[in-house]
């Protein structure tokens, strides 16, 4: 066999070995990344049902309408531990017609509650920006309570990159 071929075979074998080793590492990294956000697989059971329950506690059997809410989310969250988001509810924000509250949930977080924001006509605009923790790719669910008692809901998926090298 020619030396050149030998070298090629050796390189291929080496490459395979690195691949396997790398796989081990990536398995470890993935597991660590999932744990790091502060959840174990059993705790990560919260889902759409939990959000529905939380919503029911607030509004009973009323059905929120679609619309009015704009979810301003990154297409892909670079790291689930700090995800910048903005939410706006369309409203004139007058004494007679304004947004009273905006509730946010993340349906696959260990605990789906994220935050509640309460506005007044003196807010002028029902828009908030904050940063949230997301355990994995999931839906952000928003519910707006208006001053006339009407309800609006919006839902949008956000993809979360798992991992990120290094510690």
């Amino acid at each position, binding site marked *: 066999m020619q030396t050149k071929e030998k070298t090629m075979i050796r390189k291929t074998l080496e490459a395979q070995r690195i691949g396997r080793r790398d796989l081990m590492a990536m398995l470890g990294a993935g597991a660590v990344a999932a744990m790091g956000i*502060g*959840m174990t697989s059993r*705790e990560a059971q919260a889902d759409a049902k939990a959000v529905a329950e939380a919503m029911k506690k607030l509004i009973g059997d009323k059905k929120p309408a679609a619309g009015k809410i704009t979810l301003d989310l990154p297409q892909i969250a670079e790291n689930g*531990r*700090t*995800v*910048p988001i903005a939410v706006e509810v369309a409203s004139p*924000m007058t004494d007679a017609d304004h947004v009273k509250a905006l509730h946010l949930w*993340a349906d696959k*977080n*260990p*605990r789906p*509650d*994220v*935050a*509640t*924001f*309460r*506005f*007044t*006509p*003196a*807010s*002028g*605009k*029902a*828009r*908030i*920006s*904050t*940063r*949230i*923790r*997301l355990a994995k790719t999931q839906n952000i669910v928003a519910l707006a309570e208006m001053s006339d008692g009407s309800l609006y809901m919006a839902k949008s998926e956000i993809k979360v990159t798992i991992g990120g090298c290094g510690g």
Partner: protein
Amino acid sequence: MAKARVKVPKSVKKGEVFEVKTLISHKMETGQRKDKKTGKKIPRMIINKFVCTYNGKEVFTSDWHPAISANPYMAFFVKAGESGNLDFTWTDDKGKATKKSAKVTVTG
């Protein structure tokens, strides 16, 4: 102790809707992390309430859960009424409050 920063425009026109940005240093301990050495859960310790008043009247409030990231950033809007103070209060799980105040000058 938590340290807070707030940013409001120096002067605004009456009726103008302006953005208020706030940032506070806080770990926002979820209560779900485990101590790497002892294996015990680190108790939850978060800021769970944020309140902004404008000349003494509540204008914006928020309830936070552990899903709010460490060093919470909160931006929202306020409609300019009279010149005066915006007062901010962050309250943690132990009831400890951090306060910050900002002056607003309303023209026109």
